[in-house]
């Protein structure tokens, strides 16, 4: 069957700019619906990077990548898709006349694009980028005529086009007649925006909407309509290793041992959440099943603390946990509980909640001079299937959110980023184990789950990517 559906989202997109589609509130609406990418990551199976606008690709001898483009594809404005559009899309992302978010995935690289013919393009990066095909799943393709400034009416090759946008009220996508691929069963999707999770849940219940990709755990009570799914968000406490007593590995271990992660599951954190041993979720390349999370062992924590104290580490110094209000569900309660658990083990812990702008000043470099020992509670999102999107920022000496500097870590990151295939996976695994067991880089907590409410008339299972991308073509209508 086919028909129109309504989707209610927590946050309105303030832009529908294709090059900003990696931002979840924008991507959820246009990514692969309006704007397509050359490649696509399979999040339902294990197929890895799959073709989309590119039919196939290979690496040239000089390390650059050649993409063979699909033919007979038209943009929604009627123009034909070819290699020049890909080049233009890249130029736009990298341009300094416009601040495209996708640019951040190409940090530290110089990119040259070379149009071979209408259907072939070479992309060369310096240094060589082994996961360029994966990165291409983040670059939305726009027609060559797109100006070098943010557009509010995205033109793409996707199965849908934007037909109505009333800011503050709704965004409507409708199917295109001339789409190159399979016709989806959803003919029209109306996006609505409600900030309150219980309202979103109620809307699906009353039939005012058909799908709400995120509702509150508390409202997810109906097994027929409510599904939990592992989203790609990982909650952790970033440790600032530069300040005593956190510069002592015993203290960092003690922090980890003091927290009863298991007790959170099914209480403050949804049952289905996974205890984290890495900053990236288990579906990521190189995720290391051998790394075991720290047990909850207050006695051991106390012992480590005592040792550290004996060695002259100022363990009495109050440590501040800095968290962001409304960062994720139950953040206040979870942080209060963690505070209590740390105190139980003998830490002196203070708790400080700040709004988003202030949180940012604690989380990212440059860190404030004269700060005390701090744990910054944060949530990190990586649904891209490769750890490189996380590791550099969070752990490399130059990473903006990195709380320490370790030459071995730097080296591993560099090598893994340059490697391909099994080697790449092995190096990432090694890094993950090293960070967790030896450096004790941070206090990893949970890979969170989200809850979606799906009307019974829809055939849809949310995936790990649902947070940042919601492909309408994957939704079936019963």
């Amino acid at each position: 069957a086919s028909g129109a559906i309504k989707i209610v989202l927590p946050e309105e997109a303030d832009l529908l700019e294709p090059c900003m589609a990696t931002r979840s509130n924008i991507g959820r609406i246009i990514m692969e619906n309006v704007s397509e990418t050359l490649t696509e990551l399979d999040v339902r199976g294990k197929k890895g990077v799959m073709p989309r606008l590119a039919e196939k690709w290979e690496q040239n001898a000089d390390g650059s990548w050649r993409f063979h483009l699909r033919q007979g594809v038209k943009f929604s404005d009627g123009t034909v898709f070819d290699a020049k559009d890909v080049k233009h899309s890249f130029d736009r992302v990298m341009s300094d006349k416009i601040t495209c978010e996708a640019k951040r995935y190409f940090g530290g690289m110089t990119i040259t694009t070379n149009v071979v013919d209408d259907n072939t393009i070479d992309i060369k990066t310096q240094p060589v980028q082994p996961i360029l095909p994966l990165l291409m799943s983040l670059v939305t393709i726009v027609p060559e005529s797109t100006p070098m400034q943010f557009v509010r009416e995205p033109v793409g090759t996707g199965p849908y086009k934007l037909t109505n946008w009333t800011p503050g009220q709704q965004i409507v996508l409708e199917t295109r007649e001339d789409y190159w691929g399979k016709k989806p069963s959803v003919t029209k999707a109306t996006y609505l925006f409600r900030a309150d999770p219980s309202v979103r849940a109620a809307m699906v219940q009353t039939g005012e909407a058909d799908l709400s990709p995120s509702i509150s755990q508390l409202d997810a009570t109906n097994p027929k309509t409510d599904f939990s799914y592992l989203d790609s968000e990982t909650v952790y406490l970033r440790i600032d290793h530069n300040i005593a007593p956190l510069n002592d590995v015993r203290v960092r271990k003690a922090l980890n041992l003091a927290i009863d992660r298991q007790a959170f599951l099914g209480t403050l954190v949804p049952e289905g959440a996974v205890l984290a041993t890495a900053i990236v979720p288990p579906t990521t390349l190189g995720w290391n099943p051998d790394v075991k999370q720290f047990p909850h062992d207050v006695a051991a924590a106390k012992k480590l603390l005592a040792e550290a104290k004996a060695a002259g580490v100022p363990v009495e110094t109050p440590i501040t946990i800095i968290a962001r209000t409304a960062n994720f569900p139950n953040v206040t309660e979870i942080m209060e509980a963690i505070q209590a658990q740390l105190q139980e083990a003998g830490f002196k812990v203070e708790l400080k909640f700040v709004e988003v702008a202030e949180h940012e000043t604690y989380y990212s470099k440059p860190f404030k001079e004269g700060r005390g020992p701090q744990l910054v509670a944060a949530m990190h999102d990586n649904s891209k299937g490769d750890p490189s999107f996380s590791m550099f920022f969070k752990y490399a000496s130059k990473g903006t959110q990195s709380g320490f500097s370790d030459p071995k870590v730097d080296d591993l990151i560099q090598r893994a980023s340059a490697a391909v295939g099994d080697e790449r996976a092995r190096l990432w695994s090694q890094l993950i184990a090293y960070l967790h067991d030896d450096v004790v880089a941070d206090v990893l907590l949970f890979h969170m789950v989200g809850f979606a409410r799906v009307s019974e008339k829809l055939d849809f299972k949310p995936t790990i990517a649902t947070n940042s991308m919601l492909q309408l073509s994957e939704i079936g209508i019963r």
Partner: protein
Amino acid sequence: MLSFIRKRSVASLISLVGLIVMVFFLSRMTGDPASLFLPVEASAEMKQQFRELHGLNDPLLVQFGRYVGDVVTGDLGESYRKARPALDVVTEAFTWTLWLALITMSLVTSAAIVVGSLAAFRSGGFFDRIASMLSLIGASVPDFWLAIVAIVLFSVNLAWLPTSGTGSVLHWILPIGVLFVRPFGIIVQVVRGSMISALSSAYVKTARAKGVRSGPIIFIHALRNAMLPVITVIGDQAASLLNGAVVVETIFGFPGVGKLMIDSILQRDFNVVLAAILVTALAIFLMNLLIDLCYALLDPRIRH
């Protein structure tokens, strides 16, 4: 009268300018929009580039000079986040808020005046006790609580009204109903207090001696005398609605200026903040002017 309005407008204009100057500088001391616009993983160069593009790297005074120049030509700048003129964003949202505020305040005002006056007329009586109790509860109930309960009751359980959104007349009922409660509670209390004094004055005796019915005695003789503090409070409540009924807008998905203002403050979208304040301040100044005219209309002794 006209010269009063003229003088008042000039004075208001000056304070409007003061307000904008103040907001301009103060808001820019509260953090960097670049790090909020871009994800935490964005590189320093990207942030730098963002600042460059939006002129945030220049010294504050230069930025201010540019802003003034633009404003003089009627350009309130672009929203960083929405890539469209800030003024458009704001006027769009403000229209909704204005309607919401207008409808709510007219309902609240008429209802609160009637209930408060009747309560005062038999102060200490049964109706008074009930009205006082309810209005006080109304004034102290958290609005989000009320909003959620209303949705659960009227939309989910009874399925009488849509949960949220805009579109039909039905969509307005819950938001207005929820917004109604607190101002109603407050204004009833103020009307009641003020009316008790007015009803014990000598001119009310005169009216009774003329054989005037209770209705006109309350609503014509006493009420007008009791209105001074009441319209002040009405103004205050209206101003807080014009500044945005944040909770209600958020929960009911009402695209008003309150949510817009909160979001842009939290995201440091300065141009939108400034434009929003400009528009709402203009509305509030106008309203205060109206209130001051009302004082003079209501009480001839203040008129000179």
